[in-house]
């Protein structure tokens, strides 16, 4: 049995102190999430999506993003959700009414589009 390999591996992972660099940004995001009763989820490739704490599907926000990006005539609209274009369209058809409710929710709670989605949009602007 390769004990030395196992011990070396365990020491390495034990010693590691992973951390996120911007503590203040994380604290602010958490506090904002609690205040607005939404969860902001970061995704490197996909930019951003928001999930309601109450459990309403996260895809609703994706739909808002799709609409917003369509409005701005951005081609890679579906990339932001991490879903395929087909799935996004299907969801959009199914959830039009809920989507409107969600838009109202965002407006009522003054939840704007966060900075990193704006950056994402700029990147993909034609």
């Amino acid at each position, binding site marked *: 049995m390769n004990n030395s390999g196992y011990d070396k591996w365990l020491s390495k*992972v034990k010693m590691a102190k992973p951390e*996120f660099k911007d503590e203040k940004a994380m604290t602010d995001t958490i506090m904002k999430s609690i205040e607005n009763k939404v*969860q902001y989820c970061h995704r490197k490739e996909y930019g951003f999506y928001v999930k309601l704490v109450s459990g309403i599907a996260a895809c609703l926000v994706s739909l808002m993003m799709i609409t917003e990006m369509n409005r701005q005539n951005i081609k890679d609209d579906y990339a932001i959700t991490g879903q395929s274009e087909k799935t996004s369209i299907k969801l959009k058809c199914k959830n039009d009414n809920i989507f409107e409710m969600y838009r109202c929710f965002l407006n009522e709670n003054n939840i704007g589009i966060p900075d990193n989605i704006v950056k994402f949009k700029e990147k993909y602007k034609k």
Partner: protein
Amino acid sequence: MKDYNSTIERCKKGDKDAFRTIVMDFQQMIFRLAIKIICDEAEAEDIVQETFINARLSIKSFNNKSSLKTWLYRITCNKCYDRLRQMKNKETMTDSIENMENIQYDNDMENDISNKELCRLISLYTKDMPPMQKLVFTLKDMEDLPSDEICKITGITSLQLKSNLYFARKFIRNKFQKEKPL
């Protein structure tokens, strides 16, 4: 160990600053645990948020039977456990390992390793491990928590803890036998 009794009492009364103190003091600790269990940085960040949202929503039911740290660990572990089960179904972990094949591994024990490298290192030998075994192994062998605290966090008996730990260690050692050692 800092005493959080008055901070918790303030939180129960809705004091935002008090809760911010708790977030600031524990967010890195929760992130460290979550990333070691989940092996995905973005997922771990999500779990940090979800843990504090849950904590905020249920702080009124916190009764000081355990320490604040144990209570937060328990919420984190529940979230991680659920996430591990979801990931197992979707085989997300397999994908992320394949995507990380090209990451360089530094053998120098003194060097800090990046979050990504750490995820790769842990995934390499714990991939496909049953979720409870992974939880127990992380808490006991990586985080060095005492057994009674792990039982409180995970809600399992000491016998179940021993058995899960035994199989987790065996699982990893078998991987070392089969795969190329570090």
